[in-house]
């Protein structure tokens, strides 16, 4: 008996003869399942080292009803002006903390990340199952840059700007006026608004490239449309000034990037290390995209090129840009992966059939399952995954879980000891712990914390000098009148302090506290 004819190029997995509504329902179900999976992947214990000083800043702003714009947490920069570009994000996070503690923060981070990927899905091509696969791939790339801090809002807003520009270019739907309120909100939530402006700039450059290359097509923006986009981009660039920091808002991204210590000290500002397994998805996307562009037979659109190349370069310079890279690259990959797959399959299928290697199992074989039963099964799967997501987000936020991770990552027990014994003196602390100490040790101002733009190279280089016991470390401690030191036990300073008039006051696996 001849096997039924099939096509493994079928773009949907619904039954033949299914109505458009049924196909749409199936697509929605696939996306719902994928986004719940993304939520599950994104729900993590909120323990970013910077979360704590953001929470404390949010608390100060919340309780004083005044936006915090001077440093009140350190003794090295006490009273200095601080460009607090994330004040609104801090207030939101603190508000969540007040309402639902760590659970609310975890749920917010996972929800925001999922929402961003939902917007991303809207800008991709190919069948639902392929887009779902790419969403999971995007998650594995971007998840590295989903911290529990205001940066997560930038991730969502980049996706939103990307979605607006996608619709403007590929679907001829003009929502450019939305950019202005988005950028006003953005510049108060987080300093990452500059990535949104870059996105606009790259699309403009890409469309000009399209004209330069003589490309034609409905998706190529006319000069009039490019001008309109540039106009709204310019307005958005000025709109970001509507925040408490005024003109400093423009300068702070450059000041932050200009801190040399960032790239040496803070892993998220360093280039990727592809010997670490978690960073390999980024590399995989680059290789796969190059391969698909080279073999798909589809020309690369100018805007796709500028967005892909630009955000790839940003991601290769600093890991914190993995998220924006995923948002820029995955839609481009989808536009080339699907034609490439169609091309390959159209060649492989006849060969396999010729040699009898292809089992003729149809994806579109009529099913005997009644629609009502199918609907209930689908709903059941969604319900099961929804409950799993809820369990995950609650599970990672349980006080016991948070405390366990806190003890593993931060000097939780050393802080408790200090709170109980109140040793006197100014405290020198590890950079990574600054935020945590700001949150928990409120009577002890810190030497340094994650606000690198506030401390800049001057203070951070002193910190490095002390931690590595480089010549002159004693002068740094003397200059700031330090009488207490709290550092991890594996830094070189630990081999010097005990022979230099310092005694160990407290010690555990995470931290050593020295007193003079």
């Amino acid at each position: 008996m001849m096997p039924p004819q099939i096509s493994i190029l079928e773009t949907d997995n619904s039954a033949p003869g299914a109505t458009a509504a049924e196909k749409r329902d199936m697509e929605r179900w696939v996306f719902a399942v994928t986004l719940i999976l993304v939520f599950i992947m994104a729900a993590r214990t909120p323990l970013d080292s910077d979360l704590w000083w953001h929470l404390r800043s949010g608390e100060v702003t919340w309780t004083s009803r005044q936006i915090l714009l001077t440093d009140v947490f350190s003794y090295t920069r006490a009273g200095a002006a601080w460009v607090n570009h994330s004040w609104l994000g801090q207030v939101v996070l603190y508000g969540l903390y007040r309402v639902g503690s760590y659970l609310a923060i975890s749920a917010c981070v996972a929800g925001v990340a999922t929402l961003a990927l939902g917007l991303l899905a809207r800008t991709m091509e190919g069948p639902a199952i392929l887009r779902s696969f790419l969403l999971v791939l995007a998650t594995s790339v971007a998840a590295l840059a989903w911290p529990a801090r205001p940066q997560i809002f930038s991730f969502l807003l980049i996706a939103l700007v990307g979605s607006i520009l996608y619709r403007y270019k590929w679907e001829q739907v003009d929502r450019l006026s939305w950019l202005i309120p988005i950028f006003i909100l953005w510049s108060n939530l987080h300093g990452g608004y500059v990535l949104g402006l870059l996105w606009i700039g790259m699309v403009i450059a890409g469309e000009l490239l399209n004209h330069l290359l003589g490309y034609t097509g409905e998706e190529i923006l006319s000069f009039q449309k490019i001008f309109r986009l540039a106009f709204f981009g310019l307005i958005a660039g000025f709109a970001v000034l509507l925040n408490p920091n005024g003109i400093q808002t423009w300068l702070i991204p450059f000041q932050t990037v200009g801190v040399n210590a960032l790239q040496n000290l803070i892993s998220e500002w360093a280039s990727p290390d592809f010997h670490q397994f978690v960073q390999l998805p980024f590399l995989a996307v680059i290789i796969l995209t190059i391969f698909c562009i080279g073999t798909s037979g589809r020309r690369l659109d100018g805007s796709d090129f500028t967005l892909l190349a630009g955000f790839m370069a940003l991601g290769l310079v600093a890991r914190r840009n993995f998220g924006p890279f995923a948002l820029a690259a995955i839609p481009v990959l989808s536009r080339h992966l699907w034609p490439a797959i169609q091309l390959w399959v159209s060649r492989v299928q006849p060969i396999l059939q010729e040699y009898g290697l292809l089992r003729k199992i149809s994806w579109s074989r009529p099913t005997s399952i009644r629609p009502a039963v199918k609907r209930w099964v689908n709903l059941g799967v969604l319900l099961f995954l929804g409950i799993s997501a809820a369990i995950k987000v609650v599970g990672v936020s349980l006080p016991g879980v948070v405390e366990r991770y806190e003890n593993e990552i931060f000097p939780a027990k050393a802080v408790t000891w200090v709170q109980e014994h109140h040793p006197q003196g100014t405290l020198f602390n590890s950079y990574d712990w600054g935020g945590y100490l700001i949150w928990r040790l409120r009577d002890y101002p810190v030497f340094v914390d994650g606000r690198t733009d506030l401390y800049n190279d001057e203070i951070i280089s002193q910190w490095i000098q002390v931690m590595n016991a480089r010549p002159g470390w004693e002068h740094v401690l003397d200059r700031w009148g330090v009488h207490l030191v709290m550092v991890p036990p594996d830094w070189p300073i630990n081999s010097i302090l005990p022979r230099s008039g310092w005694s160990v006051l407290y010690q555990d696996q995470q931290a050593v506290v020295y007193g003079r």
Partner: protein
Amino acid sequence: MKLIPNLALRFILPRLGDILMIGILIGVVGMGPRLLNVDGDLGRHLTLGHFIIDRGQIPTQDLFSHTMQGQPLTPHEWLAEVAYALAYRWSGLDGVVLLCALVLVITFYLLYRLILRLTGQVLLSLGFCIAAMAASTLHWLARPHLFTLLLVVVWLWGMEITRTGKRHPLVWMPVVMLIWANLHGAFIAGFVIWFAYGIGAIWSTWLSRSSPDPLPAGFFTTWLGTGILSFLFSLINPVGIHLWGTSLGYLQNSYLVGHTAEYLSPDFHQVSTWPFLGMVMLSLLLLGLGRPKLQAHWVFLVAGWTGLALMSVRNVPLYALVSAPALASGASGWISDRATDPPYLRLERRLLRMERYLLGYFWPVIMMLLIGFLLYRGANLDMMQKGNRFDPNVFPVEAVDWLADHPQDGEMFNYFPWGGYLLYRSWPEKKVFIDGQTDFYGEQLTRQYEQGLTASEGWELVLNSYKVGWVLMPPGAPLSQTLTSHPEWQRVYHDATADIYSRNR
């Protein structure tokens, strides 16, 4: 039509390729001190090369360290070490720099000729050759891997000739592999390229709707034969199949890979990596410019080497050499497709006719002889006029001078990057704790070294267990800081580059 009837003029007038060669020669000689001082392994290679020449035997056991003495050693670079030692015997470190310059000149001239063969466009070939040079300079060091750069281009030539249906690469490519396997451990790159051509051919033949350049009959036979014979020839080396184990085994040790700078991913905060980044970005554009699409093997090579180069910075030069012909082919196809006869292509045709008509090589040979003579006579031809020497600000030159007059008791604990230099200056009288050959020293000893260097808990035990009597370290190293205030040790020598600490007796 003859452009220049005079045969002598055809010799004397330089081609663009000749100008490229002269430019590379002057550039490499001008950066001679950088070639010698950025990496610390040259001293070891020279020492080993001298040993092989003097004794007429290739050592397969360690002779240089007191920590691993007598342990089995894979001499995977012995032939290159002999070449460097011979160059050194001719004219000291000047000779080493000149050898490096010669290798790089031939490498990039062959690359230029390969791109020209693929594209037929002189300016385009020059442009991509210069781009490849810019991307690869970050790893231009006086080390055996320079021979790998040359042989990668030779190998690409062989594979391209194979792809045209000729069979003679079946004879000479295995011989090239025999030399490569004895010159440098990265001979495996040849097999990666070979594999990409095979997969690309399969892809073009069976999986792609249309191939821009159909495969000739007998390609797969020649390709497979070349691979098998090359593999067999690669086994002809002092340790046979173990060479493969050494070359691949190192990559499986995450600790050693993570502690060897050249195996780390590129740091794009360094300006030297930007030409590489530019090439990767350009590859996106050129691969995506539309029809005619590149041949599949080029796509495989570009995608694969992009991944390898992003994994380890030492692969960046290989990426540049492999990608330049691919990207040039893409650009050439796109330019040709744009218009029937644009002015640019007319210019390229005129240049190509000139390039083929002139006989060339006259000026590069004259320049090579002149520079060789000047270096031999002791002229400083580097840009900073420092001369080709080991820099006292980088290596412990004065400390080793002092040691010659004040020998210390016991074994040495040395700063890892100085191991090669110390062998060059002090072997066989003194043996090192460790040097740059981490694939030989292994994880355990490297961890012990790190323990000592950082003065981490147990450092004294490490020094005691190896009967270390004196320590040679940079002044800022944590161990130096620790020893300065340690009652059992005293600083007996100090300069801006190095401290020497000796045990109190």
